[in-house]
């Protein structure tokens, strides 16, 4: 079981993602609505994994990713996006994101992405 921090400004995505991760046997230890909240919650909980929305008002996911990685080099963060823009995804990966998921999020997509970061958690 992984302890996961879910970061998304959309209540719908936070709820559905939490339900899907819990169904997969993981624990969502906290949810953040913005990049700034994500940084704060990361340092409080030091989760095994973060799902980070790329586009959020105030502080977006790329800035939050950068700040978390600067302080916690080993942080494992996967990006979530509904934008088809490869540029943002490539930028995230170059900063240190471990993968990305295109919305709508499904358990299959989550499993495929998480298992690349943690192969021992692949669902059969």
């Amino acid at each position: 079981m992984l302890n996961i921090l879910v970061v998304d400004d959309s209540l719908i995505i936070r709820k559905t993602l939490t339900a899907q991760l819990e169904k997969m046997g993981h624990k969502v230890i906290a949810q953040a609505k913005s990049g700034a909240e994500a940084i704060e919650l990361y340092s409080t909980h030091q989760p095994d994994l973060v799902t980070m929305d790329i586009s959020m008002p105030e502080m977006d996911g790329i800035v939050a990713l950068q700040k978390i990685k600067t302080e916690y080099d080993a942080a494992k963060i996967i990006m979530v996006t509904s934008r088809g823009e490869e540029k943002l995804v490539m930028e995230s990966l170059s900063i240190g994101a471990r993968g990305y998921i295109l919305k709508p999020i499904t358990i299959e997509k989550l499993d495929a992405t998480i298992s690349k970061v943690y192969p021992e958690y692949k669902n059969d």
Partner: protein
Amino acid sequence: MTNNEYVNIVLHSIKHEIIGFLQNDMLLTIQNISDMEGSLPETNRASIELNSHIKFTASISIDEELFDFLFKKFFTQKVEDSEKEELDELFPDEIINIVVGLAIRYFPRELGDFDLSIPFKLTGEKYQEMLKNNISKSLKISTNHGAFVYTVSYH
């Protein structure tokens, strides 16, 4: 390229994503796709602006049967009564954000880089005014669990 052609490109790029979303992610069967005349139904409506050096507004409407089906697919766990109203209100916004956000990658480069607005509700007179003042085209996508209608307007 004419304004009409711009609208067609955006309309069909979004169609591609809506079909992918309904068929591949929600496992629905697409039964029919047709042009739609007249204004978008008020049911479960959301709009979003696409801004580059030109501007479009996309609006969607999801009929009740399809809305219920999609809602149940997204929320597999029990939704509390206290949250239901808020989620009902936000759900079309999330759907338009997903399908239009993903469609941008199919727009031709000459249309520039697009920014998406936050989804909003465009209803009543404001919606009619937008249709009257702009080139607009609509499509209806019918599935085995209800219909999805959307409009693209060029400003």
